[in-house]
């Protein structure tokens, strides 16, 4: 029952958001539509970290590795195939394979949580340097020149599946990106409510206990890590579709840090939190950039410190607790917003 209530809430919320996304082009201008599109693509990336960190307990400092790999894979494949559909699929597949290899090495190698953070960060920096040094005609994959630090301009954007001749308009691309965010969100909600989801939360809570009950924590963590890689890769494809461009800065330290800040501020252990944190901070950074009165990084840092000190749980869990205690005061049973085991 509780599961149903939680899911019903998510479904109603998602339906409202979907209506908003589909009608947005009616009352929002093109410039804003473009901005919303990149926000939504980044929110998918935020979800990938929110999932593996908040539910799997895996703090990956280099989630941009999978994001960037997805972006470059999409770009290379879209140029070669002149069709976005297989390119999107590859942008998910390649990061998953990479996550499987990297995750296997780290998780089955028994590397501690702290070192996992360090290694993932290092990997993203290695990828940055690697791609950065691919300038010149020599570095080509098929028809696609990797372009080194200049990046890859003019990447074909999304077309209608099965009809490469029909390129989506910016409004349509927005709708695809926005709906993709909702689909990823709902998919993760279902996953978390499933047995697999309950088990990964149990492992996050107490790995020893889970193992003593017969669960092999390693395989669950690896699969969680791979799902995170898949979602981040997909976000990479959405991102390239927005700008028709990708450059090595996608692997850079700044973005890695930002994703973590989005999740901390929005709230770990929820899925809506990372989305809220991502949208809010991107909007803020854009506003600050437009005003040019403050340095955006400075403001981001200040916000992070304020949150860590005053709202350590993040926005979404704090709001949830406030609603719960309000209900408790009135003596009503609180509505159960967290997903519970199916009963």
């Amino acid at each position: 029952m509780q599961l149903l209530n939680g899911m019903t809430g998510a479904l109603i919320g998602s339906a409202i958001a979907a209506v908003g996304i589909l009608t947005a082009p009616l009352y929002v201008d093109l410039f804003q539509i473009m901005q919303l599109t990149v926000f939504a693509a980044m929110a998918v990336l935020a979800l990938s970290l929110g999932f593996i960190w908040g539910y799997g307990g895996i703090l990956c400092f280099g989630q941009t590795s999978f994001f960037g790999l997805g972006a470059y894979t999409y770009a290379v494949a879209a140029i070669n195939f002149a069709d976005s559909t297989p390119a999107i699929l590859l942008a998910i597949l390649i990061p998953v394979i990479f996550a499987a290899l990297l995750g296997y090495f780290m998780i089955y190698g028994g590397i501690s949580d702290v070192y996992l953070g360090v290694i993932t960060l290092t990997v993203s920096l290695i990828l940055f340097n690697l791609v950065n040094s691919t300038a010149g005609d020599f570095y080509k994959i098929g028809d696609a020149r990797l372009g080194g630090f200049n990046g890859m301009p003019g990447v074909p954007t999304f077309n209608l599946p099965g009809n490469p001749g029909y390129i989506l308009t910016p409004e349509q691309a927005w709708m695809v990106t926005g709906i993709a965010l909702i689909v990823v969100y709902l998919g993760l909600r279902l996953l978390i409510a499933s047995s697999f989801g309950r088990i990964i939360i149990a492992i996050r809570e107490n790995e020893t206990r889970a193992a003593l009950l017969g669960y092999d924590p390693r395989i669950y963590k690896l699969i969680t890590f791979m799902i995170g890689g898949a979602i981040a890769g997909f976000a990479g494809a959405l991102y390239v579709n927005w700008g028709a461009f990708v450059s090595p800065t996608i692997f850079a330290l700044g973005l890695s840090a930002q994703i973590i800040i989005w999740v901390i501020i929005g709230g770990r252990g929820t899925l809506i939190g990372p989305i809220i944190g991502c949208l809010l901070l991107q909007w803020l950074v854009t506003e600050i950039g437009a005003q040019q009165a403050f340095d955006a990084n400075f403001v981001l840092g200040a916000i992070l410190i304020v949150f860590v000190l005053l709202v350590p749980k993040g926005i979404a869990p704090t709001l949830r607790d406030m609603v719960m205690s309000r209900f408790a005061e009135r003596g009503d049973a609180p509505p159960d917003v967290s997903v519970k085991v199916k009963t």
Partner: protein
Amino acid sequence: MSAPLLQTSGLTIRFGGVTAVDRVDFTLKESELRCLIGPNGAGKSTFFKLLTGQLRPTEGHVHLRGQDISGARPHEIARQGVGIKTQVPNVFNAMTVQENLWIAARHKHTPNFATELTEQILTDLRLTAIAGKEVGQLAHGQRQWVEIGTVLAGEPELILLDEPAAGMTHEEVERTADLIQEINKTRALIVVEHDMQFIKMIAKTVTVLHQGAVLIEDDVARVLEDARVRDVYLGKGLAA
């Protein structure tokens, strides 16, 4: 003749200079209830960690029904039917009592059956009233019960309980003793406990560990009368 349920031979673990478990030969028959006692630091918990794969032996072997499980990983041993309530509670703190048990039951069963089994155990252990509470919020005694329930929900054939009565009221201790005897009707157990009243309530055969080695293993009455056992508990030591 079939192999005993559990058998260790020359089981040893050393931490640097400390030999925490010292050449222990231990045999447990099917559906036996054994009490394991010994002063603080005797190596009881370490012995349990060796049996459940949380530590790897430096030397020696553990056989479960004739199969060598020394050095196997905790989840592999758990799948062979060994369940443990650890001395320091290992529970899923942010999850409810119901969820803790459900996760355990889910390993062998479908989600629906796991839910039924969970309900059953919650009723048996009188935990239904707190089923929806987060385990992290509970008192120590209650957390012990939740962990025992979690172990039962995993339906192991051999159950290891490390100080199950610690932090319980007198009434709870008696209930725990009853519960252990109830469990023992169908399953084998090894129980570590310091509370001698409790040991007298449940014990048949008692094994005493001292400085990692088996000091004596005999009927409970004889063990409690033994002068050497009194000595180690009074801290005189054997050498004196």
